[in-house]
């Protein structure tokens, strides 16, 4: 029930990002010269590494989901024994990778701003910061959701099906923002 409801909500989220993509393509199609000039500012190597960090975080998230589905909330052995990790340890690792991605975004924004590419500089700046910015806000929201899911596993006496469901639907959301970023990265950095 919760899983299907989350998917329906993610469907509406897809429409939201589809609107942002439509905005990007529409403005790009009427000002190709601006794109040729402004995309020179982008650091593709840096963004590729940042993208890899987010994609890998999705892998850690899925490993955490499998542990949640098996009903294993936390590690049973030493922290170094990765095989004994539960949902909590994998989700903390996911959180760290996601937080690194956001830190990278902040660094990128700071660099671009110092070079003169700001949200109010021109329409390229506007669409760049609106698309990547809304995605960044979604990732930040996902990070907060991870904190709540990890927190829940501490406060409850037992690790129940309802707990695992919460962990699973959070992973749906995380994979969703990951896939949206892959599309954004391809459109903004690779297609140029």
């Amino acid at each position, binding site marked *: *029930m*919760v*899983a*299907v409801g989350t*998917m329906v909500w993610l*469907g509406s989220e*897809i429409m939201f990002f*589809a609107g942002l*993509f*439509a905005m990007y*393509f*529409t403005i790009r*199609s009427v000002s190709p010269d601006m794109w040729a000039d402004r995309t020179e500012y982008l650091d593709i190597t840096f963004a590729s590494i940042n993208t890899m960090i987010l994609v890998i975080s999705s892998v850690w998230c899925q490993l955490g989901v499998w542990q949640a589905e098996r009903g294993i909330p936390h590690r049973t052995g030493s922290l170094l024994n990765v095989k004994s990790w539960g949902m909590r340890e994998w989700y903390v690792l996911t959180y760290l990778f996601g937080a690194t991605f956001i830190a990278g975004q902040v660094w990128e924004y700071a660099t671009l701003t110092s070079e003169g590419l700001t949200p109010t500089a021109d329409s390229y700046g506007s669409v760049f910061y609106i698309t990547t910015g809304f995605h960044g806000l979604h990732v930040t929201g996902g990070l907060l959701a991870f904190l*709540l899911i990890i*927190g*829940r596993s501490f*406060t*409850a*006496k*037992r690790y*129940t*099906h*309802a*707990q695992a*469901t919460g962990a699973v639907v959070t992973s749906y959301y995380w994979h969703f923002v990951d896939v949206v970023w892959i599309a954004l990265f391809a459109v903004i950095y690779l297609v140029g």
Partner: protein
Amino acid sequence: MRTEVKIFGYLVPFFALATGLYAYFTEPREWVGIVGLLLTTIFSAFIAFYLWITGRKTDRRPEDDLEGEIADLSGDYGHFAPYSWWPLWLGLSIAAVALGLAVGWWLLICAAPFLVISILGWTFEFFRGEKAV
């Protein structure tokens, strides 16, 4: 789930054809519509695929059975809150935060702690102590 898979599955070739026709008649120059229709095709396929995967993991439901009875649907549907005041506080604090964006940062800063408390309250309501679900 078979009927649901079919409903969205049939939309895939329809929108694929519509994308092709649209691209042909606009002499592929109007990109927004082409991309929009193409994405509609992909999303229909995505929903059909999701329903198919879900249908494989769950047992056949009474509504999938032509001989099914309404009474067959009784049973456990998962955890639902009997009642909760938290959504009200969450709604009010989000309203105050959103108003803060329009009015001024001072209001947003005043409202933010209420938002944090509401989210924590709702998330942890049924996940505390002995009676946690």
